[in-house]
């Protein structure tokens, strides 16, 4: 199929940037979206132009590196997938596809379609861990009984790959689905409960400091999340923060 691509080009963080039109032809419907981007970049390199910078790594939906706001949606029109898992069969011959970077003040553009997502790392560093001594006398993992229900819910929350699609699709650029997942993953398990109050307090404080917006429960994040992280995780984070605040006057 032949396509017209409208792509955000920006030389560096300080550059103003603009949308540029490109044409690609003979795209197979079996290609992934990123393979289509590879075809375009080859074309650009061959004609001596600067290829388009975009993030990617595993190309199988597990690392969370690929991003892209495609035709007005994070990771494009399909559901439950990352951009590397998006197939060109979702598009038709002759389509015009708009490709933009994630847009959020907390995710500044580095170049073209690549944004800086280290704000997520800083939120993680603020509390997204448990402090365990790995001194050689580690307890057997099965020594602490955990209900199936809690284990399943924690596992579901832990599926978050930190891609940032939730922020990108939220009208408020809110990171609450991501932070909710990271808080929940630990809060549901006995190992995580020990530091639960400090964790949620510090992670939310860091989230606010990074300049992410405030959740208004539109639910766009849940729809666009490639890993099916649910709004329940945001509700749980809200409860956890309330509990944590009651503990500390």
């Amino acid at each position, binding site marked *: 199929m032949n396509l017209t691509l409208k792509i955000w080009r920006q030389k560096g963080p300080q550059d103003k940037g603009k949308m540029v039109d490109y044409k690609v032809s003979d795209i197979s419907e079996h290609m992934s979206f990123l393979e289509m981007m590879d075809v375009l970049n080859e074309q650009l390199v061959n004609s001596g132009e600067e290829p388009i910078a975009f993030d990617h790594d595993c190309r199988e939906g597990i690392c969370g590196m690929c991003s892209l706001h495609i035709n007005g949606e994070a990771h494009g*029109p399909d559901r439950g997938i990352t951009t590397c898992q998006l197939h060109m069969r979702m598009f038709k011959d002759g389509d015009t596809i708009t490709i*933009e970077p994630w847009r959020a003040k907390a995710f500044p553009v580095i170049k073209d379609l690549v944004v800086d997502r280290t704000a997520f790392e800083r939120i993680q560093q603020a509390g997204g861990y448990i402090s365990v001594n790995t001194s050689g006398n580690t307890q057997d993992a099965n020594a602490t009984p955990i209900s199936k229900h809690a284990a399943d819910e924690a596992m579901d929350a832990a599926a978050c790959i930190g891609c940032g699609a939730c922020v990108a699709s939220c009208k408020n650029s809110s990171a609450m689905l991501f932070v909710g997942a990271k808080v929940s993953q630990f809060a549901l398990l006995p190992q995580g409960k020990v530091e639960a109050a400090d964790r949620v307090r510090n992670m939310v404080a860091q989230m606010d400091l990074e300049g992410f917006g405030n959740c*208004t429960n*539109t639910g766009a994040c849940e729809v666009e999340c490639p890993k099916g992280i649910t709004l329940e995780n945001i509700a749980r984070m809200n409860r956890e*923060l*309330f509990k944590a605040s009651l503990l*500390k*006057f």
Partner: protein
Amino acid sequence: MSGYFTSSIGRKFAMALSAFFLIIFLVIHLAVNITSVFSADLFNELSHFMGTNPLIQFGLQPVLIFGVVFHFVMGFVLEQKNKAARNIKYVRNNGAANSSWMSRNMVYSGLVILAFLILHFIDFWIPELNTKYVQGDMSGLLADGEGFRYFEELQHKFVSPIRVGAYVVAFILLALHLLHGFTSAFQSVGATMGRTKAMKNIGKAYSILIPLGFIVVALFHHFNH
């Protein structure tokens, strides 16, 4: 609780509390208004009680005013912050693909409700204050002393088709505001029940029936006076 109410989540919590308060207030307000459809006397009695009972006037009324003002001021503050969190807009954004129109336009439905509230204050509340506290007439009686004045005043307000039209539009926007807001408020306080099917249905029923009730009362008096 230090820091809780200045955090993003704490602010949402406060927003939801003020919203719950308004949700309960609307039920009470409608319950009083509905009586005017079938009994002028009952409506008069209730209005007089509501307007002169010290507990309601000096206890609940200030809370109500604070709740309303807090709700829309906080609404605007949050909206501003959220707008600022995306300094560069998307060239193409398909909001309809992942969220409802109501949820994306709360500040606009809110603005229409606010405009209505201002009109409502000028219509009913300021004259009430004037009669009761400036002129000192707490009797609630008509100028000729023949019975209570509330029902006649109400009928009088709904004569103008323009006012009734504005009233209807505002309540449609209130319905839209609530169609998102009702369940949203539960989520904001961390209550999972807001996302259960039963609660979503209750939310829908409330959001449609309550504004519809107000509209019915307005239209009834417009066509029956």
